[in-house]
């Protein structure tokens, strides 16, 4: 499969603003890497289960116990913008 990468769409999905030059550069580099990565397709894997987890373990749970939360000052301390105990961001276009 030749690497046909819609770099603009990929960058949008990844929320990274790229310049035209960067789009061209990353598009080319990705195509090159993908070409190499496509080698995985050469290996026949019919009937092979994908690896789900490195160790054969299941069911790691925590009990339903309340633990201490962060103090709000600490939670908000590193935030770029806050207001009245809230995190603040610019307006949202794509409200869902």
């Amino acid at each position, binding site marked *: 499969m030749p690497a046909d990468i819609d770099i603009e769409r990929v960058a949008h999905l990844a*929320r990274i603003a790229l310049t035209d030059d960067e789009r061209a550069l990353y598009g080319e580099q990705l195509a090159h890497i993908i070409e190499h990565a496509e080698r995985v397709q050469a290996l026949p894997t019919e009937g092979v289960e994908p690896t789900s987890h490195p160790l054969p*373990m299941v069911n790691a*749970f925590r009990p*339903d116990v309340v*633990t*201490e*939360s962060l103090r*709000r000052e600490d*939670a908000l301390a590193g935030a770029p913008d806050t207001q009245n105990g809230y995190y603040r961001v*610019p307006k949202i276009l794509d409200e869902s």
Partner: protein
Amino acid sequence: MTEWEAVIGIETHVELQTKSKMFCGCLVDSGDEPNTAVCPVCLALPGALPVPNKEAIEGILSIGDALECTLIEDSLFYRKNYFYPDLPKNYQISQYTFPLCLDGRLAVDVDGEPTMVGITRVHMEEDTGKSTHIGESGRIHGADHTLLDFNRAGVPLVEVVSEPDIRSPEQARAYGAELQRVVRALGVSDARLEEGSMRFDVNVSVRPVGSDVLGTRTEVKNVNSLRSMQRAIAYEITRQIEVLENGGSIHLETRHWDESKGATRSGRTKEGSEDYRYFQDPDLLPLHIDEAWRKRVHERRPELPAAKRARYAALGADPRTAELLVDAGDLAALFEAAVSAGAEPRTVGIWLTGEVVAYLRRENVTLDETGLSADSLVELAQMTGAGDLSATAAKEVLNGVLAGEGTPSQVAESRDLLQISDASTIETEVMAVLDQHPDAIEKIRDGDAKPIGFLVGQVMRATGGKADPRMVQDLIRRKTQA
């Protein structure tokens, strides 16, 4: 002219009322102060990792079991990737292939017309934070910034996805109501629509009757009550039919229900841009729900609303009364206690759903705050059955009991409501009345039954309404026979 059929499927989100969040120990029910129930995990600080809450898994399994789903032995958590500022990790931990519960059903009933709605899947995920859009006008549109509170982020959320088996707004409402009852009966969520602990996304499409091809659907959001869901669907069906009949086409889109306008408006277009890039979450181990666990869940299943309604109906309660009782959990408990202590179910049911509900509403009190107990209901039922109280007097006694005036006999005594059911006393009164009305006796003997009522009334008046009217009537009939 084409006849149209609506095809409706509902995705329901239910917040589980565990003590702590889905993947961290922050408090679930944290009140209004923003960002006070947050920690490195639910704020998605660098390096923090999720660990699932076992109680939430128990909760979703009980829902899956109640909806007759297959509980899946080996299940996985996935990451659903999309950027949104109320989603701290910018991916939601959810399930994709291999959810915990598959393939169930829920019976719903509209005006005695039963329908089976298929349940595609029930899966576990986590809630988002809350955003408040602030603008000069205070409206969403034209907002110039948004405030974020992550107290709700990470609260366990169960998604119940129905098959597109629903055909009318009424059925949709009945489905929503029944699902709400089931969830409440399981005790895993208060399932309050106004507060968002239960939320519906409704997929609506229409197609010509007889067609087996699905029309393009729209997803209706922002329905905050069962009534608004019904209205929104009705609106959307009409709108879609109108568009199609005018030669237009329906677009795959999200539409928001505007309660005040009574209309849906177009939101986000769901073009191809939605690519959630699901993949198994490497931070979480596979879930293995073994046979013993599945069995335990099933054995713990409480009596569900449908079964309870059927049982009450079998006891003699009429269907509407049974439904009302089951929906109001505390009344049902009292009903059960009274009936098992020997009270007559039909009468008790009618008292509870009629007089008692009216009293609670009028006085704005809860059942606990009244003087009503199972014992008093049993006593009241016995007094009525024995003819000591008329139906009207029984209701008055009930009000007195509710108001805390004492046991039914005490209330009946103090309010002087006991019926005269002593045969000789009643006979004396009847004879006295008959003596005064020989012409009435004449008419009755001539085959005219009308004066009987008149004579009963006279006896009741003479006894101050305390004579048992049935006994009076019987006696009059007997005495006037030729």
